[in-house]
């Protein structure tokens, strides 16, 4: 129980069994998704086939991809998630450094407001922000995401500020003093000492910001995609949200040009879902070490 001693065989066995069972439950929806996405119509109807499809059927993916406009949506998703992430990195690191290094009047009030903005549901500020954007003509453009993230108010920005704050606090003050003696100014010591030593925090914030912007359907739909779908911006997640209507459109146009297109079924649904998470899964498996160790290294847990 929490100790690191060698446990008895039975206990070890029990722990492994539990972990494997729960781990299976965790990936169960994913496995289900993968296996269903490869099934053809006969497999779906055949009740004897539960897990392994009779043959690998890639046509589901082809149809889902073309109905979702996969490559365009992928590119736009990367832009919509990537650009605000870069802005977040810049603004949140500056603010976090300011909180960690300097003592000024009202600092605790600032911390209080940051924590409050974390708890505050975004819905309460959503409507006036929507009106503000539409007055400024920013609605349905990428600026609606860039602008708040430049001033450290993007999606989940309070968490990022706190991560940077925690991390920059751990850098010994002596380093700064040494730099000062050597003639470095405040800003020089920020980008010559804090930024290079804050690499883990930058990686963590970058990854999480990217993933969260990628997965954000609600605000993207409202500000960038447009509620009535009147903008050219779209993301994979939003395409998935409107999958049924997109697919029926696709079916009509492709059916008119003579290609035989299957009606929407579970397999195609799951293939669409897979397509929208495959980029993230790839990112995760390449960078899993950074993801999993990020919370340890940044000391988000607070001392």
């Amino acid at each position, binding site marked *: 129980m929490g100790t690191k001693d060698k446990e008895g065989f039975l206990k070890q066995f029990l722990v492994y069994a539990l972990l494997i069972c729960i781990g299976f439950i965790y990936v169960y*929806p994913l496995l289900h998704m993968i296996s269903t996405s490869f099934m053809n119509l006969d497999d779906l109807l055949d009740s004897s086939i539960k897990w392994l499809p009779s043959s690998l059927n890639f046509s589901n993916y082809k149809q889902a991809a073309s109905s979702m406009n996969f490559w365009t949506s992928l590119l736009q998703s990367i832009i919509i998630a990537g650009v605000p992430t870069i802005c977040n990195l810049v603004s949140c690191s500056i603010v976090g450094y300011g909180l960690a290094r*300097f003592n000024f009047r009202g600092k605790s009030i600032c911390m209080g407001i940051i924590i409050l903005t974390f708890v505050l549901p975004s819905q309460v500020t959503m409507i006036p922000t929507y009106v503000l954007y539409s007055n400024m003509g920013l609605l349905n453009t990428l600026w609606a995401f860039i602008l708040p993230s430049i*001033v450290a108010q993007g999606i989940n920005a309070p968490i990022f500020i706190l991560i940077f704050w925690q991390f920059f606090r751990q850098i010994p003050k002596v380093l700064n003093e040494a730099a000062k003696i050597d003639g470095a100014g405040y800003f020089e010591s920020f980008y010559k000492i804090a930024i290079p030593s804050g690499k883990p925090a930058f990686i963590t914030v970058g990854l999480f910001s990217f993933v969260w912007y990628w997965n954000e359907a609600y605000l993207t739909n409202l500000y960038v995609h447009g509620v009535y779908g009147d903008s050219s911006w779209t993301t994979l997640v939003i395409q998935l949200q409107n999958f049924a209507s997109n697919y029926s459109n696709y079916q009509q146009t492709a059916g008119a040009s003579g290609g035989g297109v299957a009606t929407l079924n579970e397999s195609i649904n799951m293939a669409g879902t897979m397509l929208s998470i495959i980029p993230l899964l790839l990112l995760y498996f390449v960078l899993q070490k950074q993801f999993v160790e990020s919370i340890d290294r940044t000391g988000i847990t607070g001392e």
Partner: protein
Amino acid sequence: MEETKKMTRADKKALKERMKHLKSGKLEKRDARVGYIFMIPWFIGVAAFLAYPLINSFWYALNQIQITPMGRDFTFYGIKNFTDILLQDPDFIVELVDYLTSTILSVPIIVVFALIIAMMLNMKIKGKGFFRVVFFLPVIIVSGPILGQLNAEGAGSISAIDMTALTNTISSVLPSMLAEPISDLFNNMIMTLWYSGVQILIFLSGLQKIDKSMYEAAKIDGGSGWECFWKITLPNLKSMILLNVVYTVVFTSNNDQNPIIGLIESSMFSGAPGRGYGYASAMAWLYTVVVILLVGLFALLLMTRKDAYEKQVKRAKKAIKKDARNRKKIERRNRRSAKRIERQRAQGKITSRTTSREDY
């Protein structure tokens, strides 16, 4: 000893007070100014994207807003929007009660589950990295539409375990008000568990920071694993538990799978009379107040709880005092009875030495 300690503490307080009135040095002043410069982006952000929308949203909530071709048309309503939502809206109260019961039920489950998994991962096992990757996976792919697709597919529950028997038992034992959310919870077990990826990692890093020598000391004193958990692991994880609970509440409340958020959006763009931006703002405000109250409730519940160690110390101190009192009582009684015996012996009533002092 006690007095000198108090003196120094008072001195320190006075010193601090005096320091406050001292003018800060040039360097400190410059430091503070640079600090403000670093905070400038955030100040602008708070003004533009927090204070301004908050005030506006409050103003909207007090108005009826109609969108006309000429622009937005405001009619002052007072608190009518709020009373309408609370008294006349058919959905809001129902959804709110659902949200509250499901959150109050699922938060402890998520946190306890995360703690158990984290403790298992903290043991000496092989493939720790692999398991960490598996348990963190949902954090990456969780998003509204994907959960929606999976739920529609029925992949949110474990088909291998027959849930109907379980739900039937639950609904026969508990009143229907409680039974429904609980059986919902079981039906969406995977989704509930999927929300605990970050929490597991937070607990894990908390567990790794506990000093190993504490466990060793406890073991030498004969503490069992069970006792170690309650008296070492749990008190050390107190702040992590609070953090995780707050994180879980905020996450489930701001998640776009939440029906209330859908309700707010649909009334924002609804053309029905009495609906619109003002109505949606009022709803968002009510929801915000409920969420903040909920977070505060959980925080209060966890913060006032004294930890096991403090309780133990208090109990031990009490026992020591009681012991001392008892000993004194016995001593007094002994002395009294000894005197009585002496007296009686002097009077010559007792001759044997059976109840003499040596027996005590």
